[in-house]
């Protein structure tokens, strides 16, 4: 499916204030909207749009046009869309990519052509260290941080041994490596599942036999839903607590899993219950606009729009001087829904990580509650390797 939605709103006041930029700034959003992972891109897009609508269709008072394209989770598609937007539409400002493999194929082309890319999700290690670029910003996180925070969380919770599982592909291996980097206990079992696997009964039996104090697993999307249900059905959720990183348990997964998620330990950089004015405004607007739970993907789309808006405001909507735009972006002069937020030396976030727990809410439905902090002002493992 090819979805092209364009938000073109020329606020009269903005036009009067900025007569020089009559042409709206074009923003290319390449994201994943089709297939089982389609809700990730959908939430990023809608979070971004929400920030624009709250400012009357502008970004920082600058009229903006959002061009949304579906990459279908295919790196080749992402790259083609980027090339088309750069040459045909003259787009210089990009965002939206959900998956690291698509980002890896698309981002280098964008930044090499002199464009800017702000990542609302994927933060692969190869672009965070030696492969960093002055026009490449990541608003979400560096991939490893997700799982490192889960490892630290498990250590903080006092677990002495853990059983780890992830699908047998790059992100799965990174997840287990990241977890191990900060988990101080013993790994009593390590299983790489298959990416097309939907039945985990064999793994459940092995977990039960190994008797670990905790289980860490990374299974994004539908795989995670199946895993959690089967974990509960096997009776393991009562005996062995589970520690996961944010991608294994977002608002959508939670709604699909239901009570099977109760007691789950999650580590994340954002949660819907964060008590700060920016998040309150975001949650209010999201609940009013959409009839579905706000995921952290939505919060990242929203934050990305705010980051872009802050830089566009500083340069008066002009991208003609890349150095000025870059400087403005680096300041991260916006109120993130996460609270404290800054860019590190490799232009990846320096932020806090929190421990969340799935508990029964006031309405009896399970919800994610923030219970503590895991890391403070944390950058990432690769920042030192980045030379700009």
């Amino acid at each position, binding site marked *: 499916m090819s979805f092209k939605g364009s938000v073109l709103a020329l606020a009269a006041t903005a036009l009067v204030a900025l007569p020089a930029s009559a042409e709206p700034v074009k923003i290319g959003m390449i994201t994943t909207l089709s297939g089982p992972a389609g*809700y990730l891109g959908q939430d990023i897009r809608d979070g971004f749009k929400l920030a624009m609508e709250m400012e009357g269709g502008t970004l920082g008072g600058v009229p903006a046009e959002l061009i949304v394209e579906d990459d279908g989770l295919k790196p080749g598609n992402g790259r083609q869309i980027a090339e088309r937007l750069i040459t045909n539409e003259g787009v210089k400002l990009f965002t939206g990519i959900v998956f690291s493999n698509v980002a890896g194929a698309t981002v280098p082309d964008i930044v090499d052509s002199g464009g800017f890319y702000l990542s609302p999700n994927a933060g692969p290690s190869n672009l965070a260290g030696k492969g960093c670029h002055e026009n490449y910003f990541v608003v979400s996180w560096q991939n490893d941080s997700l799982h490192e925070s889960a490892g630290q969380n498990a250590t903080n919770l006092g677990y002495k041994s853990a059983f780890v599982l992830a699908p047998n592909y790059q992100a799965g291996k990174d997840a287990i490596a990241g977890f191990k980097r900060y988990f101080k206990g013993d790994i009593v079992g390590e299983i*790489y599942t298959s990416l097309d696997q939907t039945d985990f009964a064999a793994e459940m039996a092995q977990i039960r036999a190994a008797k670990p104090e905790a289980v860490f697993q990374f299974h994004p999307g539908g795989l995670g839903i199946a895993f959690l249900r089967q974990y509960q*059905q096997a*009776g393991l959720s009562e005996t062995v607590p589970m520690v996961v990183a944010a991608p294994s348990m977002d608002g959508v997964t939670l709604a*699909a899993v239901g*009570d099977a998620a109760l007691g789950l330990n999650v580590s994340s950089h954002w949660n819907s219950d964060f008590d700060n004015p920016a998040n309150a405004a975001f949650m209010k607007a999201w609940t009013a606009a959409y009839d579905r739970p706000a995921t952290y993907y939505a919060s990242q789309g929203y934050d990305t729009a705010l980051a872009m808006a802050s830089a566009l405001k500083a340069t008066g909507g002009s991208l003609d001087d890349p150095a000025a735009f870059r400087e403005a972006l680096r300041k991260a002069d916006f109120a993130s829904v996460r609270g404290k937020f800054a860019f590190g030396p490799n232009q990846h976030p320096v932020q806090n990580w929190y421990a969340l727990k799935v508990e029964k809410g006031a309405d009896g439905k399970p919800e994610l509650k923030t219970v503590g902090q895991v890391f403070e002002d944390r950058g990432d493992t690769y920042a030192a390797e980045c030379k700009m």
Partner: protein
Amino acid sequence: MTLFLEQLLNGMQLGVTLFLLAAGLTLIFGIMGVINLAHGSIYMIGAYAGTYVAATTGSFLLGIPAGLAAAALTGIAVEFLVVRQLYDRDHLDQVLATFGLILIFNQAITMIFGRQPLFVGLPDALSGSVELLPGLFYPLYRLAIIAVGLLVAAGLYLLINRTRVGMLVRAGSTNREMVRALGVDIRLLYTAVFALGALLAGLAGYMAGPILAVQVGMGEQILITTFVVVVIGGVGSVKGAFYASLLLGVTDTALRAYLPGLLRQVMVGPEADALGAGISSMGIYLLMAIVLLIRPKGLFAGNT
């Protein structure tokens, strides 16, 4: 020992789920000569329709007729509107058309239900575990799936071997032209077989709902494995599909459960894990290759 028995049950449970899908697929392939890639979509439709009804009414039982009816009606519609035009075409046209159906069904489901997976709980009566042997606890729901799968297999056996319809089905899978020449309304038979296949796929989809994720594209995940079952069992043979499903289910589960452990005896930990995971995900395809080397037409070809 209890661990081994548990893994054996896990393998059987995977096997009977595969069988419900493969039985329809092999009949459609064997009797009509149609490669129906949309079989996985019918599995998904059964899961969505049943789960939706179960979630709105709160009754797991009411979901069963809903899932079965939706799947069977979709099957009949697909046969009537699309597949019927393709009987005389070559396999490539059929693959193309039924692949198109996958895209259409996936998009339609996305438009109706959205991209979020549906939630379905276990029925209360089946939510616990039972102690089969001392120390061997097994989820009741999975036992129920095994039981339903075996019942369906027995029912199909009786239907195919003891009834007039079954006789026509067997005849049709051996020599289609002769059945037609004898004056049997082959079109009606085709529609009936297609509907039956779709019904079983819908049943598999609905039963898998509480275990897996009810989401767009769930059919494609299991379709490839189902084709492997059909090929190993012998095209057109329901008996073959039954044994091949169980063989595949148990092999796949055993490899995943034991291969990394065995390799760790002779290799370093991480390498053994990676190699074990690699080989066990190839396992069923290796099995298929071996079977095809020995019996190129599958284990039970030609003696349905």
